[in-house]
Every structure is written in C-alpha cells, then in structure tokens.
C-alpha cells in the first residue's frame, strides 16, 4: 500500500515540478520575447517610413544609417584621442629638447584643445545632470522635511513653491547665464561657466518635485509612529533621523525619480539653447552643420538621450530597492 502511494507521489512530484519549470520558462520567455518583438516591429516601421521621407539633408535616417553613425562616432572619438596622445608626446619631446639646450627654461605644458567628440559630450551631460541633481537633493530634502514638519513654514513657503514649480527652467536660463557671468568671476575657475549655468538650471527644475514629495511623505507619515516617538520622548534630531527620514524615504525616492527624469530632459534643451557643452550642443551643432550625415547623427543622439534617461531611472530604482524598506513602492 505504501509502495503504491510513494510511487504515486513520485509520479506526481516530477510532473508538478516540470509544470513549474515550464511556467517559469514561459514567463522568462515572455519577458524577453515580447519586448524584442516590440522593438522589431518598431524598427520595421521606422525603416519603412524613413525611406519614404525626403528632407533637404537627404533621406530620413533609418536604423541602418544610425548604426553606421554609432560606429563612425566611436571611430572619431578614438581618432581624436590618438591625436591628443600624439600632441602630448610631441609637446614632451619639444620641452625635453629645449631643457637640454637651456636648463633654466621653464617647460610650457598646454592642454590639447581638440573638438569634443560625441562620447565627450555624453560624459559632460551626465556629469552635469548628476551634479545638478545632487545639489538639488541636498537643498530639497532638508527643506521638504522642514516644510512637512512645520505647518507654519508650509503655509509660508507653499505659495512660492506653487508659483515657481510650473516655470520652465529654460525661462530661467538667460537670468542664470547673466547672474553666473556677473558673480562667478575667478581668474582660475574650478568649473567652466557653462557647466555652472547648466547645473543651476538642472537644480532649479529638480528642486520642486523633490521638495513637494518629501514634504508630502513627512505629512502623510503614519500618526502611530509619531506617537511612538512622543511616548519615547525622542529629542527632535533623533526624531527626524530615526522616524521622519526613514518614514518618508519612499516618497523621497518618488520625488527623486521624477526630478531626475525632468532634469535630463531640461538639460538637453538648455544645452541646445545656451550652447553649453553636452549632448544638446551636439544635436544643435549637427543641425547647424547640415551635412548629409547630420540627420542620422542627430537621430543617434536622440536614441542615446532616451537610453541614458532610461538607465538613469533604472539606477534610481535599483538604489531605491537597496535603500528603501518599502519594497512595494519600488516596483516599477
């Protein structure tokens, strides 16, 4: 009798295991195949429409043209780096020769001023967006907590936030540019003026979503936790550090992800408008350049911008998953 049952059990167990494995695989396959199918359809549609649009700069770039440009842009980058290396080697040699002739000679070291490549521009934009975002976070999170904790402060500051929140940071750009030019005067500046201008623009637009979400997180904090803190008679700074900050972490992350998304979009526009180095400038330069390659290079930039924006958001999400106790709010 027992033998029969165990046989049955044995027979059933692998079946259900198989089923589980199958459903696991089919889930994975779906998660992989469906997006691939989506991308494939998009590519097909894109190349079909692209070939039927004629512009004054030639045909609208299709996937193939973009792929070619990706290779081109990387090649150009490497070529530029080689040029720079050659320049430095030449400079060193020249200096050595002159030092040998005249030991009192002070060798001159000049920095290579070649054209920024596409990859340089990507890096510039990334550094700018992250710096501006961090500056905004350093201001916005304490401010949001203060506003969330104090009704008085909230009532006082709320109108200002509401008025400045809908202003496109691009409207600020001329003012920021003029103020930075006037105030940021130093014979040996640590950062370029254009970097400071872009950074402030990014900060201005990242600020509001973070302030609003942080203060919302603090206000909507579970009243029980506040009562626990009261019963324990926690001092103010411990209350903020141990209760308020962790409690509002999920809302803070929501604000940060919104901010970073906006910041990245705004930065590209600001770079185009103000001719500050970065991906925006690359796009604008190519547009002004108007060669037969321009459109496909711009298209490459567009896709790169999208990809980087996506990766920035994913990074924030990953960070949230690691740091936030509330795993359900870090779902997507």
């Amino acid at each position: 009798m027992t033998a029969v049952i165990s046989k049955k059990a044995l027979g059933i167990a692998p079946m259900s295991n198989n089923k589980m494995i199958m459903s696991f695989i089919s889930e994975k396959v779906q998660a992989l195949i469906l997006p691939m199918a989506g991308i494939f359809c998009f590519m097909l549609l894109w190349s079909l429409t692209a070939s039927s649009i004629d512009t004054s700069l030639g045909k609208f770039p299709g996937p193939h043209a973009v792929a070619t440009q990706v290779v081109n842009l990387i090649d150009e980058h490497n070529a530029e780096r080689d040029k720079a290396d050659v320049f430095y080697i030449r400079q060193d040699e020249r200096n050595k020769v002159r030092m040998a002739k005249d030991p009192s000679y002070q060798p001159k070291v000049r920095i290579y001023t070649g054209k920024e490549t596409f990859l340089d521009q990507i890096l510039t934009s990334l550094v700018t967006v992250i710096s501006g975002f961090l500056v905004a976070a350093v201001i916005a999170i304490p401010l949001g907590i203060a506003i969330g904790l104090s009704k008085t402060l909230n009532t006082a500051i709320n109108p200002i936030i509401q008025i400045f929140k809908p202003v496109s940071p691009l409207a600020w750009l001329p003012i920021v540019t003029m103020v930075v030019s006037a105030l940021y005067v130093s014979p040996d500046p640590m950062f370029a003026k254009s970097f400071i201008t872009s950074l402030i623009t990014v900060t201005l637009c990242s600020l509001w979503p973070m302030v609003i979400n942080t203060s919302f997180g603090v206000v909507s904090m579970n009243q029980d936790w506040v009562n626990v803190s009261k019963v324990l008679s926690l001092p103010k700074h411990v209350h903020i550090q141990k209760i308020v900050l962790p409690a509002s972490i999920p809302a803070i992350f929501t604000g940060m992800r919104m901010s970073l998304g906006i910041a990245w979009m705004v930065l590209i526009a600001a770079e185009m408008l103000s001719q500050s180095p970065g991906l925006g400038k690359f796009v604008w330069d190519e547009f002004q350049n108007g060669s037969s390659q321009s459109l496909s290079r711009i298209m490459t930039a567009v896709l790169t911008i999208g990809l980087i924006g996506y990766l920035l958001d994913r990074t924030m999400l990953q960070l949230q998953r690691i740091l936030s106790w509330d795993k359900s709010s870090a779902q997507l």
Partner: protein
Amino acid sequence: MSIILDISKVDMVFPTPKGDFTALKGVDLQIKKGEFISLIGHSGCGKSTVLNIVACLHRATLGGVLLNNKEVTEPGPERAVVFQNHSLLPWLTAYQNIELAVKQVFKNKMSPAEMKEWIEHNLRLVHMDHAKDKRPDEISGGMKQRIGIARALAMKPEVLLMDEPFGALDALTRAHMQDSLMEIQQKLNNTVIMITHDVDEAVLLSDRIVMMTNGPAATIGEILDVNLPHPRNRLALAEDVEYNRLRSAVLTFLYEKQRKVEVIPTAESTKTTEKAGIKQNTSSVA
C-alpha cells in the same frame, strides 16, 4: 496599596466647526500600584481619549492626571503605550524596534551589554526571541503585537497603557495573547490600563472593570471589582459562577443600561427611508 495614578475630574472638549464637542465629562479614577484596569464601553464613547490623556498625547480641557502625585504634562516612557495597530517601525527589525526604546530610556543607565541582555530578555518574555531579526512585514499580526508589548515593557513603565491591544487579531490568536499577557502580568505585576471591546477579555484579565457611558459627555458609569483568584484559567472559569455573574453584569451594563442606538444621518434617512427603517430594525434585534 498606594494610589499610583490619579485621573482627576477630567473633561475633554474638542472644538469643531459646529461648536464645541464635549467628549468626556468628569472622568475620575484612582488606580493602585499593580492593578490591572480594563476600560470598556461602546465605540466612540471616549475610551481612547482617556488613555491618550493619561499618555499626554491629548491634553485634558479641565482636570488632569497625577502620576505619583505629580501632574503629567507631556508624553513619556514611564507611561508606555501599546497601540492597537502594533505601530512598529517597518524599517527596523523586532530587535531594533525595542532597541530604539531601550537606548532612549536607559541612555546613561545601562552598558551596551546590559542593554542587549535587557532587549533579549523582553523578547524572551513575549516568546519572540526566535524572530528578533525579522522585520514587521515578515511576521504575523499576533507576533507584531507581541513585539509591541515587549517594546512597551522594555521601557519599564510605571503604568502600561494598552489601546485595544488585541482588537485587530483573530479570536484564537487573541486568546493566546491574553494567556501570554496573564503570564507576564503574573511575573511583573505591572500597573495596566487596557481598553477593550471584549467582555470576556475584560473579566479574564482585570482586577477592576471600568465601564463607560455613551458619549457625548461620556463618563464612568460603573466600576466592577473582579475578585477571581490568580492565576486564572479560561477553561475552568467558563463554568465558574462568579465569572459568569461578572460577565453578565458587564453585558447588562453595555446592552441594557447603555444600549447603543445607531444614529442614521438625517440627509441619508430622508433619501432612503425604507432602508433606514430596515437597518434600525435589524440593529435593535441584534
């Protein structure tokens, strides 16, 4: 035994847009050291308000609360509260939740090793030492409430305040928790004020049952002394004459003297007169 807590002629008035609302009127209660008091009454009668006034999460409009003959003016760990919804901090483990309390209360009085021992002692007391590194969302409702009780006990409170501590639990878990609480009370002999809806819970656990009248202007209706010997056993008591007398005394107070009439808003009742009529009928039958 000496009076440890004196709730002295407390009135509570809440200002509302429609004018003042008197929640409590002349609540007066003296509690002896080591006494276990249950506050029972219909929902909305202001039991929680009384507890919050003792905890100083609310301030009484008139009257006040004396702890060891000193008026209490702000919340403090000597009046630890066990909240209805456990109120554990979800980002901390069970151990860390208690640690936060212990670190604050015994900051300069215990060495780190003593603190660790004290936290673990309290976890053992509620039989939760096996789950000390679990976060609240990884354990069941009853387990969370155990940790909540351990956290409150770890503050070595002079008065332990419990706001319907088992209200959110299923009946079996609740019975289990009541037994645990009796066992702990047997060891520690704390002074406890517990709010409850549950007549059996009140009779089983308390030394005195304080029954409150319905609001507005709720106050203490009757006080019932429970002179059943400790330790109490729920199965043995089920047949006990005195137990059943006390039980029916509480039931009589709640369902005859202070019967709660469901008030149906007038705007709604004019719209659905028929439905409201049916509702009223069923509630009176129940």
